[in-house]
């Protein structure tokens, strides 16, 4: 194995399912100890990409390394050193919590199995419920258990596929604190998510839509990369204003955020002129705001969907 300083370093990964090109020329670098957010709309190829990285799917083309191991050739070594948390809870509902952890410890041939399982149960705070059937746990507990189980063999890289889907905000916050503790210990994390607050907690981000990687970098870099300026308009009847603004010069997108309408565009001067004309004489205020991640993501998603059609 070679040491490149990257936990994940893949180039030009492609994957087809039948005639569908699910992942197109994906190149991605995740540094060691980094929390890397993987964002994109549903069906954009996030799960497929993650599965290729942990050896569950064979890429049609492309090369890469995980923890210095070659993707296809060293699939076994990758499986031993990577922790993968599936999108859907995939531990056994008809085993107890302890039995599930014990099974995982056996599969990875942990020498101090009992000790590891006991410690994990204790850390989870599930020692008293160890003999409860896993199927009876709530969503938040299942998610915590799944993270603990995929961490059991002390992997150096975690691949988490939408780990917080359907989990309440406080459990999500706890989960992210745990991720940052792991990262501080030098463990690299690739996590896919739909939540903007989570995206902002990542060290780095990648945005993928329709199989194509559209942006990569820190949150600030991703935002800067799209060179959008954004104005917030507040007042009444924002929905009809939103309709009216569509297609006007300089307006790229309008998004309602709570009590304000965010209007973004590439040409700041043109956008400002258009907006001032549009709200003239109406009881509305407009202020320049910093373009947020969500503005950028929606912008990128809309743009890429224009290019996405049936194959010629």
């Amino acid at each position, binding site marked *: 194995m070679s040491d490149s300083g990257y936990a994940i370093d893949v180039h030009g990964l492609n994957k087809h399912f039948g005639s569908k090109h699910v992942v197109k020329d994906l190149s991605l670098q995740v540094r060691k100890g980094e929390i890397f957010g993987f964002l994109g709309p549903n069906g954009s190829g996030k799960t497929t990409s993650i599965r290729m990285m942990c050896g569950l799917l*064979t890429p049609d083309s492309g090369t890469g390394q995980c923890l210095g191991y070659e993707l296809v050739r060293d699939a076994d070594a990758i*499986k031993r050193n990577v922790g993968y948390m*599936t999108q859907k809870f995939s531990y056994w509902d008809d085993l107890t919590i302890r039995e599930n952890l014990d099974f*995982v410890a*056996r*599969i990875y041939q942990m020498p101090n199995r009992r000790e590891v399982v006991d410690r994990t149960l204790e850390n989870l705070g599930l020692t008293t419920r160890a003999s409860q*059937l896993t199927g009876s746990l709530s969503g938040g507990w299942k998610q915590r258990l799944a993270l603990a189980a995929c961490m059991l063999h002390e992997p150096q890289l975690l691949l988490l596929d939408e780990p917080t889907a359907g989990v309440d905000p406080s459990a999500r916050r706890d989960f992210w604190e745990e991720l940052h503790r792991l990262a501080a210990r030098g463990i690299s994390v690739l996590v896919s998510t739909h939540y903007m607050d989570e995206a902002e907690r990542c060290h780095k981000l990648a945005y993928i839509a329709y199989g194509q990687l559209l942006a990569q970098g820190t949150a600030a870099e991703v935002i800067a990369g799209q060179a959008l300026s954004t104005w917030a308009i507040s007042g009444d009847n924002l929905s009809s204003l939103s309709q009216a603004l569509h297609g006007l010069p300089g307006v790229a997108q309008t998004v309602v955020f709570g009590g304000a309408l965010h209007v973004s565009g590439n040409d700041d001067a043109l956008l400002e002129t258009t907006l001032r004309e549009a709200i003239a004489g109406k009881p509305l205020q407009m202020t320049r705001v910093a373009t947020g991640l969500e503005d950028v993501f929606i912008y990128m998603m809309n743009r890429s969907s224009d290019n996405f059609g049936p194959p010629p």
Partner: protein
Amino acid sequence: MMRWPGFSVARWWSIVLKEFLQLRRDRITFGMIVGLPIVQLALFGFAINTDPRHLSTAVIAAEHSEFTRSYLAALRNSDYFDIVATLPDEAAGRQALAQGRVQFVINIPAGFTRKLLRGERPALLVEADATDPAATGMALGALNLIAQSAMRKDLTGPLARLQAGPAAYDITVHRLYNAEGNTQYNVVPGLMGVILTMTMVMMTGLAMTRERERGTMENLLATPVRPIEVMTGKIIPYVAIGLIQASIILLAARFVFHVPFMGSIAAIYIAALLFIAANLTVGITLSSLAQNQLQAMQLTMFYFLPNLLLSGFMFPFRGMPQWAQFIGNLLPLTHFNRLIRGILLKGSGLAELWPSLWPLLLFTCVVMTVAVKFYRRTLD
């Protein structure tokens, strides 16, 4: 800990343990394991019977004599006939038959005894409900025999000359073991193979597809566990189940159906193990083809039916056309039926069993190869 390239006993054992734990919690499956042999035994062993007895019978007796009384007593003793009614006349007899209240009406005409004593061979009129010929055939055969033996007892002294009756009473009801007949001796051992086929193929099929359907297969595939470890680890508990089922059937065969045990018990278990292995490989192959548990069930039925129909279990093997015999010879149940009947009923040894043994071995090896090839290591 034993280790060789690729295979880890520790990992394999973890799969075995997990399967046992899950099996223990799955009460319906557990119930089926025990229930299936018992229900099938009851159905095929007791319910389905081509030599039915205790058929309801009515008697119209126009006269009462020592002869008629002893004849009716003999009928009652034969097990074939339960005399449920004594009717006044033929019209009442016809009605009882039409309504299905009785299967037979035995009419003893007036003057029967007088004619008998004169040696005039009087006729007993027997009307049978022959809607199902198979149900009445055997009993009708017995009727003649009963008459003959009842008369022989009464026709003593000066009447003994009448015993030299015509040779028409030569229908034999008491049948010896017949390899191609459908007696319990034949059916009950055959059931072992049928039940093992059903359970083994279905259980493994379901166990593998269940992992896929619940998404846990993705988890398994992401661990270092190897296909051969998953497959064989999942199989072990079902081998144990198969042996339990075989034992249930053997116990029933011995103590409920009184099937003779001519051969060795060890030979039976070796044959059973081999047959279980053959079916488990089929189950795993089918589970690789099936996308979900429902499909696994359908494929099981698809595999099970020809086994049931063409293996010689349902119908005599040699009675089938050539093409059906050819297909039958490809199926493991055919060979297992020959093995188990050979061991139990004929006490066959290895030399006699070998022609049925090697096809089973070959089948297992071929299908196992296919199964390993089909097992998906990735989610592709």
